């Protein structure tokens, strides 16, 4: 349970970081929060030649409004999302999801961008970022490029990041007026990885729901946009939408896998439970608008 030997670097400028990535690329791992990397090193599941500690880099710990987006830098901790008035006001879905991530001590160190760059299929945060239509900002010595969340997440621990790139920030669109954000997951205990989950946003206009987007968590090798469910919710009056129909739409979206933690049948059952909770929330939101 001790880390293997590696060379350690702590760049103090982006130039230094990019030079290190250019030189070491695939043989390097970036240490930001370290809450996933450190256990991997300790269990010898990773043995990089170089660990690049980016915690000394200036300017990466900010949450700022940029145009129509909230831009969240590479060193923004999960706990920062919890405490941020900007997140609460403009992208509340992120706060709703982040409180399910592990435990306080882990959220104090772990970073949102680190979680996105790792792309663990059971991790919470990629799902709401996908549901909200987030965009990743990737930087290297070759310059900067942006990629949508849908294109970024490519499979288990697989993203669009090239070996010489780092995830510098994520942009998340700011909620429209009247936009409701909902997040539900099923986990055995507080802090466990989700066994199934849904992140959703919708604008309630009486019985009608518009601007609907939803993503599924922990039922595939990456977060999955629930397009069929979103279409169903958009076309059906809230009063006539049943949890069974919504859950069926979720289950149609992707081949749900089994694991030792939960079989496919159990996960489908969880999606049915979540569908019921989402509809309850949507009903409550709709009543709020009326009253």
């Amino acid at each position, binding site marked *: 349970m001790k*880390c293997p*030997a590696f060379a350690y670097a702590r760049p103090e400028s982006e130039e230094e970081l990019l030079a290190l990535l250019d030189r070491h690329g695939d043989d390097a791992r970036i240490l930001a929060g370290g809450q996933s990397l450190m*256990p991997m090193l300790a269990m010898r599941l990773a043995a990089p030649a170089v*660990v690049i*500690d980016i915690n000394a880099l200036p300017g990466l710990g900010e949450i700022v409004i940029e145009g129509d987006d909230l831009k969240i830098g590479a060193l923004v901790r999960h706990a920062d999302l919890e405490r941020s008035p900007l997140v609460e006001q403009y992208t509340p879905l992120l706060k709703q999801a982040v409180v399910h991530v592990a435990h306080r001590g882990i959220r*104090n*160190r772990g970073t949102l961008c680190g979680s996105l760059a790792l792309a663990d299929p059971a991790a919470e945060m990629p799902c709401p970022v996908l549901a909200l239509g987030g965009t990743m900002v990737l930087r290297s010595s070759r310059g900067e490029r942006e990629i949508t969340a849908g294109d970024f997440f490519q499979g288990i621990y697989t993203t669009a990041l090239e070996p010489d790139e780092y995830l510098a920030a994520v942009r998340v669109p700011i909620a429209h007026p009247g936009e409701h954000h909902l997040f539900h997951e099923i986990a055995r205990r507080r802090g466990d990885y989700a066994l199934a989950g849904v992140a959703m946003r919708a604008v309630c206009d009486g019985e009608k729901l518009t601007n609907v987007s939803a993503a599924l968590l922990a039922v595939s090798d990456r977060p999955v946009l629930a397009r069929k469910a979103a279409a169903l919710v958009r076309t059906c009056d809230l009063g006539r939408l049943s949890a069974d129909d919504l859950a069926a739409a979720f289950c149609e979206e992707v081949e749900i896998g089994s694991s030792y933690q939960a079989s496919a049948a159990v996960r489908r059952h969880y999606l049915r439970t979540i569908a019921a909770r989402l509809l309850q929330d949507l009903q409550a939101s709709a009543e709020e608008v009326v009253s």
Partner: protein
Amino acid sequence: MSAEETVLVVCTVNGEAVRETVPARLSLVDFLREQLGLTGTHVGCEHGICGACTIVYDGRTARACLMLAAQAHGAVIETIEGAAASGRLRELQESFYAHAALQCGFCTPGMLLTAAEALTDGTCGDRQAIRDALSGNYCRCTGYHAIVDAVEDVRKARSDG
């Protein structure tokens, strides 16, 4: 065997200046315990689940088994020794004692630091909230109820007082 890469660490631990050379791959918890002799921070699962290694790093709780000693550079670190010496844990310690919220004591430093932060954050509103706040700290002895009782009492005393 080739020489292991080392890193210079200059930091503050429990209010005292520290200047040490550490192997690059040494974990922060091993550094605190073995190089600084601060054995109040415990090594349990060594992969971030049990919370026995909880310290305070730049004002927030963190798992010392999930950090490198090298990351102490430039940081302000408080272990259970420093927190207890400061007196800020006194109410919690007395409440833990009164409720028999410890037996072997292995989880206790982590429990105290986590509970203290949760109380300051205001996330101990009811027993379920206390359980949620302590969900990352495992105890093998007490069955947890006494710990929840102890934290609840401190919360009640603070909101009444």
